[in-house]
């Protein structure tokens, strides 16, 4: 399923001239170390992680037994009963994050022109747990036992669709599927839609497939850590790096045309100042991975020199080769230890398409609060990693004005986004 197919053309808008600046005005978070933006952010600054033995299914017979699961999530307390039979767990999380983001933005969606607002999210698997249950029903009991809602509940685009329906956001919509890079790619697509005339795009990503089917798929990718120690399983850039812990959740962000946001008196967290995406060279052909180019192109798109960047949120793969490649890319742009680098995802695990969106949320709140969240569990950087990692505790700064967020997706996707103070 490609975004081209799912993306509807923007409806014609009023002819008034618009700025092309895209600003973030709302944040909603469901993360393994906190449900809700402020709960998650406070835990993140305290260095509290949410990596635990898997609870959603019995993972004891699998090589990987740890996950980052959103704590204390009671679906029936958050989701109307009409939506429960038709939604996967990660869709429910996305709907809760969306409600928080829209409330936070102060937008009255009911008062918007009909096609002024749309939805662009990222996904890497769709509703895997839902799909597994229905496929099990299919082969064990027969077709008549399969839910009619299987027709959409496991699609990549399901979160965009459900968000659009629930909040009557009838403008351009779509889904980006580029694994871990998706959380940035979606926001960039949202910016494109603003430039084409939309006023508001609900964007970001909430993802996760903590179920046997999802587990098997992720194990086949050979990137999961098989450590059973929550404090040692996912240690990117560390000499002991051995893969990552997968998790669920992410962030939904409200991205608005700046002029429109200013006119309605919105509180602005920051601007999406720059973005770029690149592909790695085809496997086996050699050559430098695309991450450095993505970072440089994103800075160029923002019109900012690398000296302007106050912090880099790393992709933090947690595998020695990929960690080294990322450290080399950062060092090539900023010089050895040339910029503070952090990976708060060490507290959540990697959330597939949700991870980079959560990093965007962290970047915006770093700017708001003049603080850099820590990278936990990393004690001894691997040889050759010349990064100024924010380890130990959060770092207070006089000011944080600009953050670079890096993200990679399995399959050769690279993305970089520059977030700047309003």
């Amino acid at each position, binding site marked *: 399923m490609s975004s081209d197919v799912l993306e509807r053309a923007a409806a014609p808008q009023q002819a008034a001239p618009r700025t092309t600046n895209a600003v973030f005005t709302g944040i909603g978070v469901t993360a393994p170390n906190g449900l809700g933006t402020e709960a998650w952010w406070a835990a993140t600054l305290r260095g509290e992680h949410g990596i635990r033995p898997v609870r959603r299914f019995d993972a004891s017979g699998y090589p990987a037994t740890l996950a980052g699961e959103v704590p204390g999530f009671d679906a029936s307390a958050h989701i109307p009963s*009409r939506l429960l039979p038709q939604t996967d767990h990660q869709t429910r999380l996305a709907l809760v994050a969306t409600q928080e983001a829209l409330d936070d933005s102060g937008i009255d969606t009911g008062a918007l022109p009909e096609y002024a607002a749309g939805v662009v999210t990222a996904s890497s698997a769709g509703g895997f747990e839902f799909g597994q249950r229905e496929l099990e029903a299919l082969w064990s009991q027969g077709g008549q036992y399969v839910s009619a809602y299987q027709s959409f509940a496991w699609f990549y685009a399901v979160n965009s669709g459900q968000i659009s329906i629930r909040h009557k956001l009838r403008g351009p919509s779509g889904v980006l599927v580029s694994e871990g890079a998706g959380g940035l790619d979606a926001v960039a697509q949202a910016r494109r839609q603003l430039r084409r005339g939309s006023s508001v795009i609900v964007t970001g990503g909430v993802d996760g497939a903590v179920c046997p089917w999802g587990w098997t798929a992720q194990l086949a990718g050979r990137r999961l850590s098989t450590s059973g120690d929550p404090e040692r399983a996912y240690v990117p850039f560390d000499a002991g790096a051995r893969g990552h812990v997968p998790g669920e959740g992410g962030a939904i962000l409200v991205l608005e045309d700046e002029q429109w946001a200013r006119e309605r008196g919105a509180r602005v967290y920051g601007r999406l100042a720059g973005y770029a995406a690149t592909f790695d060279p085809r496997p086996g052909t050699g050559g430098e991975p695309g991450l450095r180019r993505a970072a440089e192109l994103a800075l160029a798109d923002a019109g900012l020199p690398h000296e302007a960047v106050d912090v880099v949120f790393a992709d933090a793969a947690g595998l020695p080769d990929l960690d080294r490649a990322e450290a080399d890319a950062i060092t090539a742009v900023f010089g050895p230890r040339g910029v503070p680098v952090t990976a708060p995802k060490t507290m959540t695990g990697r959330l597939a398409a949700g991870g980079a969106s959560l990093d965007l949320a962290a970047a915006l709140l770093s700017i708001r609060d003049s603080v850099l969240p820590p990278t936990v569990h990393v004690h001894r950087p691997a040889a050759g990693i010349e990064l100024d990692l924010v380890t130990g505790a959060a770092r207070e700064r006089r000011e944080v004005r600009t953050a670079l967020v890096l993200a990679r997706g399995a399959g050769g996707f690279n993305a970089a986004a520059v977030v700047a103070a309003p």
Partner: protein
Amino acid sequence: MAEMTLEELTGLLRECAGEDESVDLSGDVLDIPFDDLGYDSLAVLQTTGRIEREYGIYLSDDTAAEAGTPRLLLAFVNEALAGVPAAAV
């Protein structure tokens, strides 16, 4: 041959497709269109599939589209039930 009651139908609707907060399903809803009860065509399809399984009947593919109200759906179901030997139910 027992007929399916409105109460049984609304119970299955609740299980299959939830319940809209603004609707009182326990009231007199026989002639209220499913759309107004908060059930779209997929919700009705999900429910008719469940009825087929629970009652051992076959409903044509058009049932969900043609049965616009609980009264109409019950008529389709009970017509099918009338043709099923009691032992099969």
